[in-house]
């Protein structure tokens, strides 16, 4: 496989605060984020020649509008050759970046705008959210009839992982606390008040051993980024965010088909991404790890090589992943504290990774941030996706 290390770069990002914006339509979040990203990139809007929206889960009507060029018309983009949705649930960010990079590398597009928006906080009722996530990505024949939903999905991995590694509920809760400390520093995060392990442990039991405060909550929000060639990025931007490496592995559709619920496909995806990028996990300055539930942050963190098997819980407990720690992790607060906005969970993380490399992360800026790793996963943990970004090309 040809190595495309550093051939493309993210040059602009935009994001609206995650929240409950009852009086605003999802289109507002999309347009606001897109305008921010285009301005941040230093581009004239008509230089955007390709638009990639991703799916919006709260409304199929609205999602269809995104697929049928509403953003191009609303933004008045005059030179767009193609508006083409890329949607794989929670891994949409990475898959869209992969598609965008390939289009640019092969000369089929010059400046690509990716946009995500959703309204899962106020566009659905609380029970509507639970019900949506008891069928989305879940087998209607082999799992739905047994009452499978996203809490059970996370709980099944957590129970087995605890059994195999001896990781404790307190260590799992430490993930929530670490991510909250970052969210306290992020104006775009929803939950910004301090959280303790005791509070997490005292929260309502959802599905053993998973508690309410170990579960993401659904919100409204949106984000966008602009990708172009590395060559053009150097002209346009003082600090291009180079796409250095990518790796992925699809392991299943139906969750019960996964042969190892404590590992998934991260090891292979991580190896590929680091090999592509020409760096090792020890070179990583910031890790933006998909955290819809604490278990997933621990597993991905270990499997891509940031620490050894069964060590991630203690590491999160030690403060190493929190502000001021040795391996700053999920620095936007993640889905657990910034809030879950559907496919936007990983979009937030990718945008945050780029923001850290650009040096624009404000009070949560990681000093001298050269290399960032971002992980994303869709469905019921169906694919392990790893992206490595950097301020320089190794």
């Amino acid at each position, binding site marked *: 496989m040809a190595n495309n290390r550093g051939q493309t770069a993210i040059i602009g990002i935009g994001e609206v605060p995650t929240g409950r914006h009852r009086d605003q339509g999802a289109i507002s979040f999309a347009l606001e984020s897109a305008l921010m990203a285009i301005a941040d990139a230093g581009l004239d809007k008509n230089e955007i020649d390709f638009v990639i929206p991703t799916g919006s889960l709260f409304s199929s009507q609205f999602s269809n509008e995104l697929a049928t060029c509403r953003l191009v018309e609303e933004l008045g983009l005059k030179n767009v050759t193609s508006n083409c949705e890329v949607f794989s649930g929670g891994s949409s960010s990475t898959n869209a970046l992969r598609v965008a990079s390939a289009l640019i590398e092969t000369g089929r597009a010059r400046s690509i705008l990716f946009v995500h928006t959703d309204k899962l906080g106020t566009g659905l009722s609380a*029970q509507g959210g*639970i*019900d949506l996530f*008891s069928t989305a990505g879940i*087998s*209607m*024949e*082999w*799992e*739905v*009839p*047994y*009452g*499978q*939903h996203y*809490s*059970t999905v996370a*709980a*099944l*991995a*957590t*129970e*087995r992982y605890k*059994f195999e590694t001896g990781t404790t509920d307190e260590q799992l809760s430490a993930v929530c606390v670490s991510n909250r400390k970052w969210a306290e520093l992020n104006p775009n995060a929803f939950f910004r008040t301090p959280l303790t392990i005791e509070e997490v442990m005292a929260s*309502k*039991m*959802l*599905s*053993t*051993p*998973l508690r*309410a405060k170990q579960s993401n909550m659904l919100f409204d929000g949106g984000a966008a980024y602009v990708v172009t060639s590395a060559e053009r990025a150097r002209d346009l931007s003082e600090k291009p965010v180079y796409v250095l490496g990518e790796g992925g592995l699809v392991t299943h559709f*139906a*969750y*019960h*088909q996964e*042969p190892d*619920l404590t590992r998934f496909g991260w090891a292979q995806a991580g190896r590929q991404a680091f090999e592509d990028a020409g760096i090792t996990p020890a070179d990583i300055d910031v890790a933006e790890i998909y955290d819809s539930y604490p278990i997933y942050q621990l597993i991905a963190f270990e499997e891509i090589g940031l620490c050894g098997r069964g060590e991630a819980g203690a590491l999160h407990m030690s403060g190493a992943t929190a502000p001021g720690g040795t391996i700053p992790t999920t620095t936007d607060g993640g889905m657990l504290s910034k809030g879950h906005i559907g496919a936007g969970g990983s979009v937030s993380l990718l945008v945050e990774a780029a923001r850290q490399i650009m040096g624009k992360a404000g009070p949560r800026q990681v000093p001298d941030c050269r290399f960032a790793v971002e992980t994303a996963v869709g469905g019921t943990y169906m694919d392990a996706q790893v992206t490595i970004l950097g301020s320089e090309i190794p």
Partner: protein
Amino acid sequence: MTQNDVRSTKPVPVVAPWARPFWDAAHEGRLILQHCEDCDRVIHYPRMACPHCSSTNLGWQPASGRGTIYSFTVVQSNAPSAFAGDVPYVVAVIRLEEGVQMLSNIVECNNDDLVCDQPVQVVFERLDDEFNLPKFRPVR
């Protein structure tokens, strides 16, 4: 919502044509598994073609009905609407003796006593006139 209303809204399996024999057998209280006549592998869930060798030369074999709990969870709250009346209920991934995994519920058990790798045995629970769902209970 009464208990009956909850039951009447239970989701039923959306059956793929090639999986019909599995559900017909379950209706008769038998657990069967798909088997590839070419590469000799056991397959679950049933496929249109073998996921190992792509052969469409597929048959069926009776399953032992024995397995172990790979992982489990006791749902205590925030269940999907159709299952709200069932809490606490147990969702588990079962590793069957034949080497395949399936999702199911653990029934006829003390929820507090469940552990990973515990041996279980299939039982069938009536869902409606058409479907019996294979579920599992601890081996006593």
